[in-house]
């Protein structure tokens, strides 16, 4: 199974995934990213008034992202 790396970008801060997750296909990786974004948005948006959250998928640990799966943002006032 190929390994996918999921970088989480919260506002301007990128947490690089150095471990990755083995998944059957890019489709599965997309689904996982979508689910993770929903999970994490609940936490991030609860504690911040202004935030953006994005997940990028890479197929190599030091490669460029192959897909920006999801992005969500919240802004009050």
């Amino acid at each position, binding site marked *: 199974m190929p390994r996918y790396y*999921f970088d*989480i970008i919260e506002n301007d801060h990128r*947490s690089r*995934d*150095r*471990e*990755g*997750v083995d*998944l059957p296909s890019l489709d599965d990786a997309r689904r*996982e*990213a979508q*689910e*993770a974004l*929903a*999970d*994490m948005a609940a*936490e991030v948006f609860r504690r911040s008034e202004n935030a953006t959250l994005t*997940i990028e998928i890479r197929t190599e640990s030091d490669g460029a992202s192959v897909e920006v799966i999801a992005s969500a943002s919240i802004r009050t006032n």
Partner: protein
Amino acid sequence: MSKPTEDELRPFFATIAARDTISDEEHRALVSAMGDRRVIAAGTDIAREGDRPLVSTLVLTGMTARYSTVEDGGRQITGLHLAGDFVDLHSFPLKIMDHSVASISRCTIAVVPHAELKHITEQFPHLTRVLWLLTLLEGSIHRQWLVAKGRLTADEQMAHLFCEQYVKAGIAGLTEGGRFALPLTQTQLGDALGLSIVHTNRTLQRLRRTHAIEWQDGIVEILDWDMLRELGQFDGSYLHLESVPR
């Protein structure tokens, strides 16, 4: 086929001794209630939802999980059991399993016929209360998981679970200098926390970065217990570690 040895039953008696003192006669009654020991491979269902088991299962070595599945195939682990834990003592009065139990790792288990448990309830009132206590502890752990899932962040919830597993392993005499076995995969950890794989992976990376724990090849090492406990807002009073007459 053989009965479990006293040595294999040590974690079980340790979990009781942490909460109460039982007499030699009660000890012997529990030993003689044990049926055959069995070795089962990882990933084997021990009991399935809808089953009507005639035995309860005691873990002698390894780890098992209680789980339920939902329509889209998602799985929620609702309990983790290690050596010394009864995985389905409640199946004696409940009769029908409302969830499944599977082995996480290779396990040795002992089956205890419900007829033997019935005999204990009829002959040993204090021992009956001790067994009742063990099922109540399951309930208090479930409550704590619910609070953690409902009100803690993923980071806190994960730290809380590591704290709980460490304390439970310690009670059963399964820790060695801050190290204990936690043979879960990341997916199974996510199933226990109710988190997606990616979120679990990220949360674990963040927890490792605090240097409170290390977790490799199924072995957890507690590096900074105070920090881990604080991260997880862990208060072990729900594990009822007080040896008093029940």
